[in-house]
């Protein structure tokens, strides 16, 4: 037995659903139109408290011996850094030359091995290495219990 009333309910429901869907689609289009933004980096934003204060440091006047000592120290540091840089360049050159020589010899030995050596190494990446530490960890040290809480500010668009 079919009645008129349930049919009306179905029609109204379908219309309402369609209207809702269209509204959602419009909202989606609007949100998708906006381009994604990069998360602002807190390192590059100077906090206000460093720009507002009026504190100015007044440095004492340097004596002539002190300033001369500093200039000579600067010159020594420049020389040291130059030597360091040159040593690095020399090391790179030596490495590249020895590599090229080895590859040349390998080529003379066999072409197959040479081709395999030239190919890129898939196992190289990802490469991870922690930097050296000032002090290695103490053996037998019992650290107090605790936990680390991540309080990074989450930015949403």
């Amino acid at each position, binding site marked *: 037995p079919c009645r008129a009333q349930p049919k009306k309910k179905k029609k109204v429901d379908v219309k309402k659903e369609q209207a809702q869907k269209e509204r959602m689609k419009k909202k989606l289009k609007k949100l998708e139109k906006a381009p994604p933004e990069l998360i602002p980096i807190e390192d590059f934003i100077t906090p206000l408290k460093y720009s507002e204060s009026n504190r100015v440091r007044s440095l004492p006047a340097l004596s002539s011996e002190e300033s001369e000592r500093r200039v000579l120290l600067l010159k020594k540091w420049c020389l040291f850094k130059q030597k360091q840089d040159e040593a690095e360049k020399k090391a790179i050159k030596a490495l590249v030359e020895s590599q090229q020589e080895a590859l040349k010899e390998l080529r003379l030995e066999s072409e197959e091995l040479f081709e395999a050596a030239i190919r890129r190494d898939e196992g190289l990446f990802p490469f991870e*290495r922690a930097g050296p530490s000032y002090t290695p960890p103490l053996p037998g040290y019992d650290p107090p219990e605790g936990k680390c809480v991540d309080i*990074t500010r989450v930015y949403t668009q």
Partner: protein
Amino acid sequence: DALLGCHRSYRSRPTHGIGKFKYLLPKEAPKKRKERVQMKEIDAGTEHQYGDVNIQMTSYDLCLVEHFAQYVHRLCNRLSIRVNESYAMPTKTDEVLFMEDRGSKMQLDAVLTTHQRVVQIRGLSSTFAPILLEIIQSSQPEGVHLLMKQHTEADFKSRLKSRPELEELLAEMS
């Protein structure tokens, strides 16, 4: 404008447009629209060349990691390795709490900030890669964690802000 501004526009005469000069000036670039942050195409690399490689440096010390990133960038410039981008990842802040000796309350010990800098290079040849790694490792400062990996879309997406509303709507739609 010069043609319409002046009241002596004799279009049939040969002297029409006699005062024009804008065509002689160099063309100005059109007004820059807001630069959209679009993902650049990721290079996969050939058999003898690695594609886009990310050198990520992480540390608690900001100055150290900045200077190291600058050093790596200059090194790549000197060795004529193409540097795509050199950017900073957002800083992470950690609160370290520890339990007191006698007590049940957690006490605040320190607030640590982790900074990360990324140098993205392209076209690294397979023979030169181990040499570059060796050089970077030998000059790695204390406390700086080095990580070298291929660039992926996920890496790029991690730099962007999250959009919960969009994701909610997408979930509802499907």
